[in-house]
């Protein structure tokens, strides 16, 4: 049964890599329900399957079996371009390694996502500037990723993830590549986003940071527990 206010529901999701003797079960019958406005930290040791789960939840990867519902849409049956639309409209993804386009400036990186969604150029620039302002980077909008620190790049990545007003923000170790101070600053931004009603899910192996979340889900050998 689907939870009324759930934004993400997984049903027996399995993810298997390889086959035969080299078969690796990264996710084993994962069943979780994530409500609107949740702030969840996903913890687990290396190789436990937390990044795989994030990629499946972010529609970057498809489960081998089972179903994933996002806003009541069974995305496990969708085609590549329909998945692209879900990623564009409903999900904001923040990577550990920022993953900004190296040839574009901060402003262009944020505006590009809105371009995929067909937002008019002028509106995109205004919103991108506003978002970069919200993450404290008004003075860095014309800088390229290579001219910014890790923390700054990650803040650009957060601004980018918010550009199309997605209801779900996924962060795959968003503080993993930055110093502690920047890490806390980034978490605070994410917590503010959560307070505005967005669902925030972050992967982390730092227990202190994980404890700041409203819910903590741990994963071990592909099996989740709360």
């Amino acid at each position, binding site marked *: 049964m689907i939870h009324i206010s759930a934004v993400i529901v997984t049903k027996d999701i399995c993810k298997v890599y390889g086959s035969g003797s080299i078969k690796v079960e990264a996710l084993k019958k994962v069943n979780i329900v994530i409500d609107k406005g949740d702030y969840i930290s996903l913890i687990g040791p290396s190789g436990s399957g937390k990044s795989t789960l994030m990629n499946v939840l972010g529609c970057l990867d498809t489960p081998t079996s089972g179903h994933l519902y996002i806003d009541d849409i069974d995305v496990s049956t969708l085609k590549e371009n329909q998945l692209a*639309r879900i990623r564009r409209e409903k999900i904001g993804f923040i990577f550990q390694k920022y993953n900004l386009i190296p*040839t574009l400036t901060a402003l262009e990186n944020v505006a590009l996502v809105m371009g*995929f969604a067909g937002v008019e150029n002028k509106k995109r620039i205004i919103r991108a500037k506003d978002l970069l302002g919200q993450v404290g980077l008004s003075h860095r909008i014309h800088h390229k990723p290579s001219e910014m620190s890790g923390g700054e790049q990650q803040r650009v990545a957060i601004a980018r993830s918010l550009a199309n007003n997605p209801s779900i923000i996924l962060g795959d170790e968003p503080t993993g590549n930055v110093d502690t101070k920047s890490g806390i600053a980034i978490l605070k931004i994410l917590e503010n986003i959560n307070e505005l009603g967005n669902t925030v899910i972050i992967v982390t192996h730092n227990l202190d940071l994980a404890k700041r979340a409203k819910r903590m889900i741990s994963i071990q050998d592909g099996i989740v527990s709360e």
Partner: protein
Amino acid sequence: MFKDNFNLAFKNIRARLSRSLLTLLGIAIGIMAIISLMGIGEGMNVAVTGELNSLSDTILVNVGEGFSIFSRGSIDSTDEYLTERDISDIERIIGIKEVTTQLVGGGILRFNGEDKAVTLTGIDSDIMQIQYSYENLEEGTLLQANDQNKIVIGYKVAYDYFDREISVDGKVLINGKKFFVSGIFGKQGMGGITSTDDIILLSPRDFEKVTGESNIYSATVTVYDVANVENIALEIERVINENHGDDDFASATTMSSILASIQMVLGIIQTVLVAIASIALVVASIGIMNTMLTSVMERTREIGIMKAIGATNKDIMVTFIMEGMLLSITGGLIGILLGVFGSKGVTAVLGNIGPSGSANLEPVISLFAVVLAVGVSMVVGVFSSLYPAWKAAKMSPIEAVRYE
């Protein structure tokens, strides 16, 4: 989104500038070759057309096969000539303005104590000026209306026939009669409609004086109305052939039919040249494909990121095709500029080393050629980036993001 695609493509080209410039150079050379060869071909066409169009009211009548660029029959190969009756019959055809005749016969040319058997051509001075323009002369002048005992000679006659070179105003003997050289034609070689290298032109009166004959090898007919020129040519052929009882005795050739056959040959030459130049373009398009494939490989991670943040396969494809087009169109535009200057350079060089007269060749770069060049570069850009773009678009986002 167009602006974003353009921006991404432009910035990527700039980020890999030297590779992009080399790729672009390939296209530029291909387009340059096409533009300049088309320009030179069109220039030849215009030059020939211009010259022959001014003679569009003229019909050349001669014995035998007729006047063709495919067969330049030797004037010595026939001992049959047009008769006075033929000429007066031609004059009676309605619509004819004037008939002038050209006499051909053998003679002995003596200079510097040496004798040479030569072919003499007796021709009215005004016809001479139409058929052999002043531009073909290397030195001196063509004959004037009342000139007597004067000749115009070919390049080989002046410089190769005798141990000593004959110069303008030089004195020679033809069949024992004294003549002065009025003009010498430039070297023509095998090109051109009529080779002037071995020619000796003199007035019809002088011709009769030295040969004692008036063998009419050919006649030049002008008509009042250019529109009737083809019909009159047919009528002339019919009349002469009837006189001699031979369906193939003589032929009457209009300038437009000569023009058509020359244009056909020029067209073939032009097509072959452009086809050869297209090989350069094919190589260049493989260059673009290669550059784009490398670019796709280098940007695997970037493609993954774009997909992860919501780009569709179409968005990715458009970005890469745009990049290929940007390279090829820029290359094409540079190629057009190079082609314009290149064709001028080539014709200038040809003018210096080629036969006389080719110096007047001006390349004609038509709007069609430019539009074609731009169109071809666009098509090359799209086609050569299609496969790399497709390869980029079908990447799995998660694998591409993980790519290091």
